[in-house]
């Protein structure tokens, strides 16, 4: 089966279809993770401050944010993408393609990251916060100089987890017009009865997930 003819055919698919889609997936994933990290981090800071046991509790604000975070997280990604397509069209101008996928993926990933980060910050020893208060640190200093510093390993682990989850999400987005490896596996592989393309894409996705986990572990250990 794995003879010269097969290899030539595989290379044709890989070079023409699969290869470019790998980069497409990576671009989507990177953009989504960068944006979601920025927004998610900001949101997590607000959550940890206004939490009932936080530095400056605001019960009502926390409830609103908490509801929003839970609601967005409760959507399966594919439903979220189609549900907010009017918004996507208004913002990006289209609902098809890489760029159009980044918006819903970011919207989905932001609360996900915010919740993971919030939990990581909440794990920081309360006595450290009290010590910081005892020498007159402000709330912002407590957050950035104590909580973030102490939670960095958990934040890295959380980002690794999120990145792999959203690698899967980008491939699902491929089913509704986002392009990338997911679209290739479905359109050229599954729906065209082309197992070579399907399983090549699957294997590449597995390898990508392994690499992301490996990088995450490496950084975690370095810390």
């Amino acid at each position, binding site marked *: 089966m794995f003879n010269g003819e097969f290899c030539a055919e595989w290379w044709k698919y890989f070079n023409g279809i699969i290869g470019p889609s790998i980069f497409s997936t990576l671009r989507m994933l990177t953009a989504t993770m960068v944006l979601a990290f920025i927004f998610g981090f900001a949101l997590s800071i607000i959550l940890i401050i206004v939490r009932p046991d936080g530095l400056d509790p605001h019960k009502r604000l926390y409830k609103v944010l908490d509801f929003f975070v839970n609601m967005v997280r409760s959507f399966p990604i594919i439903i979220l993408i189609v549900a907010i397509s009017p918004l996507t069209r208004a913002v990006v101008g289209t609902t098809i393609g890489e760029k159009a996928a980044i918006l819903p993926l970011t919207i989905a990933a932001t609360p996900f990251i915010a919740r993971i980060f919030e939990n990581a910050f909440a794990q920081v*020893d309360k*006595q*450290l916060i*009290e*010590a*910081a*208060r*005892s*020498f*007159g*640190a*402000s709330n912002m*200093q407590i957050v950035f*100089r*104590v909580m973030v*510093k*102490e939670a*960095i*390993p958990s934040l890295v682990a959380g980002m690794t987890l999120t990145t792999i989850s959203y690698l899967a999400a980008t491939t699902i987005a491929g089913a509704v017009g986002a392009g990338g490896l997911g679209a290739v596996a479905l359109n050229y592989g599954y729906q065209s009865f082309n197992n070579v393309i399907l399983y090549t894409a699957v294997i590449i996705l597995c390898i990508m997930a392994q690499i992301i986990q490996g990088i995450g572990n490496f950084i975690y250990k370095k*810390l």
Partner: protein
Amino acid sequence: MIKATNLKKSYDSLNVLSDINLTIQAGQVYGLIGRSGAGKSTLLRCINGLESYDSGSLTVDGIEVNSLSDKEAREFKREIGMIFQQFSLLNRLSVYENIALPMKCWNYKKKHIDKRIKELVEMVGIPDKLYARPNELSGGQKQRVAIARALSMDPKILLCDEATSALDPNTAKSIITLLNEINNQLGITIVVVTHQMSVLRSACEEISIMENGLIVESGPVETVFLNQSRALSNLIGNKDLIFPKSGVNLKVLLSRETAEKTIVTQMSRELDADFMILGGETERYRNSVLGSLIINIPVESFAKITNYMDCHHVVWKNIEDEINTSNELEEDKRV
């Protein structure tokens, strides 16, 4: 100077502090002792504004702590260092960065921070651990780092919340020695909260005993010890001594003047009276030695012996009285 008058605080229906009156002079080492839940930690946290109080007044150098705005309260806390039972160091920062943290928060110049840290590690005796992480240090060393951090901004007051409770006795002793040195050299007022008698004895000049949110006894540590009040024996607990069936059991307290004399054997010789020694100990205090001796004397020589002790200013207590009163109290509680 720290002054509390009619200080009260409660969580829901639980009175944590009920009517606290207390004065701590500048430059003093002051001890707050009590069982867990007595309210001593809460009182300590009120002093630097980590906890608020419901009514009454608490002033530090004439400033009413509860009246400060958020910003003023932060400035105020700068003047008061604090150390904790669990050291509260950031594990991901080096010793250097840990000590630098308060100064960084207050935007001190890098040069100043660097100089100050080097002075501080010398003072607390860990100059070789500057770039170690806290998890590479022993408990005593961690507490030294915490002390250096608390002193980094030249505070006027140092609050110690069970600072030696997580340490073994020898390490605890060395930390106490360090605190005494700091008090002597820098003249910082130190307030110590603890449940360990040994800490109070070797560090404090004055102490207050707290029970259920109240100060039940306070005064110079030697006086409190010589008084042998119920509050003190509640705290230390009576030793399980086996008393002979006959005779009277007395507790003889040796004060600064009598602890280093052979008063008891003298008495025996001069009065030609025999008695049994059931137990005894001497304890080193900050400035002196105090001791106690428990003796059993025949009933007929009771008057003679107590008279002799009164003449020589030896404080004594009849242990039966003490046991009876504490039993009565127990019964009162049950009723």
